[in-house]
C-alpha cells in the first residue's frame, strides 16, 4: 500500500511538473509579433495592377532606369547631361545628384525637382522598374535580395518614404502619377496584405 501511495505521489508530481513546464512554454500568450495574412489572390492582383500603374509612371520609373543614367520628363528620355548612377546611386565626381537637385523644389519651370535624399538605387542593387512586366516587378519588390533588403513591415512602411512621396510633389510643369498618394498607399497595402500575389506572367 505504501509503495502504491508513493508511486501515486511521484507520478502526480511528475505530471504536475510537466503541466507547469508545458504551460510556461505556451507561446500563444507571448507578445512575439507575427502577421496573419489574408489570402485573396484576386484582390491582391487587382491592387497590384493599380500599384504597377504608379510605379511605371515617369515620376517613379525615371529614377529606376534599366541603365546607369536616370530618365527625365514625361517621355522618360535619358537625363540631359547623362549623369551616371555611381556606386551609391548618388552620381559621380562633379555630376552628383545633389549638385543640382536641392533639398526642396525651387520655383519655376524646368528647375530640378528637390529632395534632401535625391538618388538612384545603388549599383549593387539597381531595383530596375523600366521594362519590367507586372509579374516581374511584383516578384522583384517582394524579394529582399532585389528590393533593398526590405521585409514585409518595411515594405508597407516604404509607401510613406520621403522620396517616394516626392513623386507627388514633382515641381512645376511635371505630371503627377495616375493615382493620388492616398489611393496608391491603399492599393500598395491591399496588394501586400491580401497575400502579395504577383499577376500571372503573360505567355
Amino acid at each position, binding site marked *: 500500500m505504501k509503495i502504491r501511495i508513493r508511486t501515486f505521489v511521484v507520478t502526480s508530481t511528475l505530471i504536475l511538473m510537466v503541466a507547469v513546464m508545458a504551460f510556461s512554454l505556451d507561446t500563444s500568450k507571448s507578445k512575439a509579433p507575427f502577421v496573419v495574412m489574408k489570402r485573396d489572390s484576386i484582390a491582391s492582383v487587382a491592387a497590384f495592377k493599380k500599384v504597377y500603374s504608379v510605379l511605371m509612371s515617369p515620376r517613379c520609373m525615371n529614377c529606376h532606369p534599366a541603365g546607369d543614367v536616370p530618365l527625365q520628363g514625361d517621355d522618360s528620355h535619358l537625363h*540631359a*547631361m*547623362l*549623369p*551616371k548612377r555611381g556606386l551609391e546611386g548618388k552620381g*559621380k*565626381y*562633379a*555630376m*552628383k545628384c*545633389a*549638385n*543640382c537637385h*536641392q*533639398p526642396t523644389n*525651387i520655383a*519655376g519651370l*524646368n*528647375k*530640378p525637382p528637390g529632395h534632401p535624399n535625391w538618388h538612384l538605387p545603388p549599383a549593387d542593387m539597381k531595383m530596375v522598374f523600366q521594362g519590367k512586366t507586372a509579374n516581374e516587378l511584383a516578384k522583384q519588390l517582394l524579394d529582399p535580395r532585389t528590393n533593398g533588403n526590405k521585409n514585409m513591415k518595411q515594405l508597407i512602411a516604404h509607401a510613406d518614404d520621403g522620396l517616394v512621396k516626392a513623386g507627388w510633389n514633382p515641381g512645376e510643369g511635371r505630371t503627377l502619377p495616375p493615382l493620388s498618394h492616398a489611393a496608391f498607399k491603399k492599393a500598395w497595402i491591399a496588394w501586400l496584405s491580401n497575400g502579395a500575389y504577383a499577376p500571372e506572367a503573360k505567355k
Partner: protein
Amino acid sequence: MIKLNINKKIYNLDADPEMPLLWVLRDVVGLIGTKYGCGVAQCGACVVHLDGEAVRSCVTKLSRAEGKKVITIEGLSENHTHPLQQAWLELDVSQCGYCQAGQIMSAAVLLNENKKPSDQDIDDAMAGNICRCGTYLRIREAIHLASEIQGKERS
C-alpha cells in the same frame, strides 16, 4: 544676417535666404568670376564648391550655403597656381572663356576624388559643363596634364 564662408573669408550678409547663391556671389559680394549661363542647372557655368562638391550656384539657395565652405574660381588657389589653372594656361584651353570657370571648378572636384582619371572618368565628370566654343578636347587634355602636375607637386 547670414554668415557665409567664401574663399576662407567670413561675410555677414543681409540677404534673402531664398536668393540664389550665384546672385549673392556676383551682386552682393562682388565675386564675378562665377558666371550666369542658363539659370536652370543645365550648363555648368555657375559651378562653385560647397563643402568640396561642385554645386550649381544658380539653383542653390543662400540658405543651403550657410555654415558651409564656399570656394569660387577666385579662391581655388593663390596666384592662379592650381594644377588645372597651370594646365589651362599651358594648353591655351579657353576660347571665349565664358564657361571656363565652371569647367575648372568641376574638373577640380574630379581631380580631388580621382588623381589619375581616364578619358571616361573625365567625360563622366564633365558631361554637365557645356562649352559653346567646343573646347572639349583641350579641356580633356588639360585635365590629364593637370593630373600629372598634381602628381609631381605631391611627390
